[in-house]
């Protein structure tokens, strides 16, 4: 019965009224308002109290309504809930350079956590390879599917494939390989391996460009190298690089490499970002701020602070918030919960919401499709029965592209 309601909701038009509507578009936030949804898109948004719901729309009401949340960096979908070899597909740690792998080929939308995060309001997420390889592979941006969603293939869920190339610095790569006496054993080597690969990719790109320019004969065609081909997109600025970094000196290394190769890049996790925020601002690098409720698993996260997001944002750095990779129980962080801690520790409610909606969309370059409740964008909507960040509030309903993917109590 419940299923029938949900399936029939698929193609429906909705009128969502809210006591506190956060469109995250231009204009005042948090007042009463109405969002009209037709054919999976936002048809119209009207602010104000007591607006009549037009005919032909199914009415939904919430205390708080926000755009669908965007997790800027997570291994949910490739690192499964059971945490057994069968469902761990995030780290190809057989080679420190796996630039040629792509999360597209690991993504499992049927994993319990993929549905779980949708029920806490995430409608879009950038799925990333894990933390082990210095050059880890290509990320992708996908819509989430809730427990009520019919199966959709990875390509149907994709917002953007190969959205970024992930580079890991710090403790984890050297712990992965160094313990087997393989490179990298030190941070020096991690940096060198990345620089060497980027240099080769630049030369590889130049070779191909030259060959194309000279319209040389097919016999002189340069040899194809899938890793260098993937990295060529990074050095040419077509594919953004994401450096996953924790310690301040590792953040500095990322900026050094990014500057040297003129990369289009961003920083993820950024645990000690607050200690080097002036340099981050000067470099003009956006930060995907990591989860703060993670256990203190290693040395590089021992200076984590709940105020990191606020301190970075106050320095004028564009921020999004991310959940990242988790190695043990619980197998994923919850974006809404992590952001709540940031909101209550200096960031404030509206900037916190911004960090997981429109700011995240802008940083990831998907703000033409999602990230705010604005006419023409995807109808990605979350309905709450109270302050979204309050511990005791509930997500009532989640909509992805106008489809109800989660309904509380079903």
């Amino acid at each position, binding site marked *: 019965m419940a299923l029938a309601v949900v399936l029939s909701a698929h193609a429906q038009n909705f009128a969502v009224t809210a006591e506190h509507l956060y469109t995250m578009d231009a204009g005042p936030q948090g007042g009463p308002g109405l969002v009209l949804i037709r054919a999976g898109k936002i048809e119209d948004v009207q602010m104000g109290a007591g607006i009549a719901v037009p005919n032909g729309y199914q009415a939904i009401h919430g205390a708080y309504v926000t755009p669908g949340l965007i997790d800027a960096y997570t291994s949910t979908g490739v690192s499964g809930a059971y945490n057994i070899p069968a469902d761990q597909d995030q780290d190809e740690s057989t080679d420190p350079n796996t630039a040629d792998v792509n999360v597209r080929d690991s993504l499992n939308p049927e994993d319990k956590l993929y549905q779980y995060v949708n029920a806490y309001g995430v409608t879009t997420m950038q799925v990333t390879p894990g933390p082990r390889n210095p050059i880890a592979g290509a990320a992708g941006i996908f819509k989430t599917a809730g427990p009520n969603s019919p199966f959709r293939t990875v390509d149907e869920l994709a917002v953007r494939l190969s959205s970024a190339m992930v580079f890991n610095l710090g403790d984890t790569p050297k712990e992965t390989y160094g313990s087997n006496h393989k490179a990298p054993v030190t941070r020096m080597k991690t940096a060198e391996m990345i620089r060497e690969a980027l240099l080769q990719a630049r030369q590889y790109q130049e070779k191909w460009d030259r060959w194309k320019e000279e319209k040389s004969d097919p016999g002189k065609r340069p040899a194809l190298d899938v890793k260098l081909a993937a990295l060529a997109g990074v050095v040419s600025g077509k594919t953004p690089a994401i450096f996953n970094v924790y310690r301040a000196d590792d953040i500095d290394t990322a900026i050094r490499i990014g500057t040297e190769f003129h990369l289009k890049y961003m920083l993820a996790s950024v645990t000690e970002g607050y200690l080097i925020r002036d340099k981050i601002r000067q470099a003009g690098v956006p930060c995907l701020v990591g989860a703060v409720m993670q*256990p203190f698993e290693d040395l590089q996260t021992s200076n984590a602070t*709940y105020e990191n997001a606020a*301190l970075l944002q106050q320095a004028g750095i564009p921020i999004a918030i991310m959940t990242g990779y988790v190695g*043990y129980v619980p197998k*994923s962080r919850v974006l809404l919960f992590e952001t709540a801690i940031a909101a209550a520790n200096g960031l404030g409610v509206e900037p916190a919401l911004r960090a997981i909606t429109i700011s995240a969309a802008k940083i990831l370059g998907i703000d033409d499709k999602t990230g705010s409740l604005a006419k023409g964008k995807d109808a990605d909507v979350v309905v709450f029965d109270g302050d979204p960040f309050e*511990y*005791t509030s509930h997500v009532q309903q989640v909509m992805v592209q106008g489809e109800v993917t989660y309904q509380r109590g079903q």
Partner: protein
Amino acid sequence: MQRTKVVLMAAVCLGAALRIAFLSPMGVAQTDHDNNVLVFEGGRILSITSPPIEHGVLVIKGGKIVAVGEQGKVQIPAGATVRDVTGKIVMPGIVDSHSHIGIDPNPTVSDSQDANEGSGPIQPALRALDAIDPADPNIRMATAGGITTANIMPGSGNVMGGQTAYVKLRGTTIEQMLIPGTIGGMKMANGTNPKGYGTRGQAPMTRMEEAALARGIFEKAQEYKTKWDAYNKAIAAGDKTAKAPDRDLGLDAVAQILDGKRIVHNHTHRADDVMTVIRLADESHYRVVVHHGTESCDVADELAKRHIGVTFTMIDAPGGKPETINFSISCPARLEKAGVKVAFNTDDPITNSRLLLRSAALAVRGGMSEDAAIKGLTIYPAEMLDLQSRVGSLEPGKDADFIVLSGAPLSVYTKVLETWIEGEKVFDRSNPIDLRYATGGFNVISRYPPLQGGGQ
């Protein structure tokens, strides 16, 4: 401002000063010792064992609670130091019934991790107290979360992991931390974790063997206890020829379980594993508390009819290992409805000790009553540790362990402002050093940038 800076510099330069500051925080009237009487007046008081008092008075002296009551109805002794806490909440210090602070210290580096003695699955002679580092910053972070009492436990890698320690979060030695007169509980575990031996070709490799090993040690202890009981009886009867049986450190501790003096704290997740815990306790007639209890709500009636409590670990998402795959924030609510007493624990480092109030709040999100959730932070865990006569509520004669909150206990926006243990303030959010144990960043205080809005 300038003064704050000087204090900060001094603390950072002197290294050990951090610990000294912990013992005797800056400012005035931080202690009720020397028979000072301290009064906290005007706040909303949650005494736990009686209804909330909107404008209350809490009187403490000599580390104990002297009086709790309504403003105007409680006699304030002459010469008392009175603190106005109008607009704030005062509640008992939080009791964490399952923690690894001090034994798995921060930062997590392999040399300092002492919770799991992976050399054999039955380790009743081990004592957590022999491996606890009182200087672990996690302990101070726990006070920033309002925790005053903790059950520090060995890990779950063994079927019988060792004796737990009931401590207050104060002092520089384990002797100062231990609660006088307590011997701790016994850590046991079943399900996934002890099967880690199986991957090395050692027992236990299956749940069957875990249960067999547990059953074996209790049978051995019963035999040991019978010998000692006979010997003690003979001595009492004046038999001077009676020969004392050989002492065994491990069996001594297990015999205390059979004597009802030591409670078993049993890590268990899956419903069938919970039933194995119950079966073993029924067979050997001992007191047990179910720890984690991820699927305990599926056998809630079995727990309720035996009056077995559950101390629940509130994680944010399912999984990380197969036995937690069915995790739900609604489990505590279901246990409550079945009449099972539920406490909340941190299992620090699994959840952080600064956020135990949050665990109770998420249970309310999952349908639990607020009253049961608050009891699950205070009096219920105290009962699960046999400490209810000392801690877990604000009543005359009990230890002066309490916290001052900025607002409603289960709100994300509420801050723990002060934490007091036996009349001594161990955490003060207005102290710039203590603040960094609440937010994180205590290793880098001198470089920590200022937050606009102050972060208070």
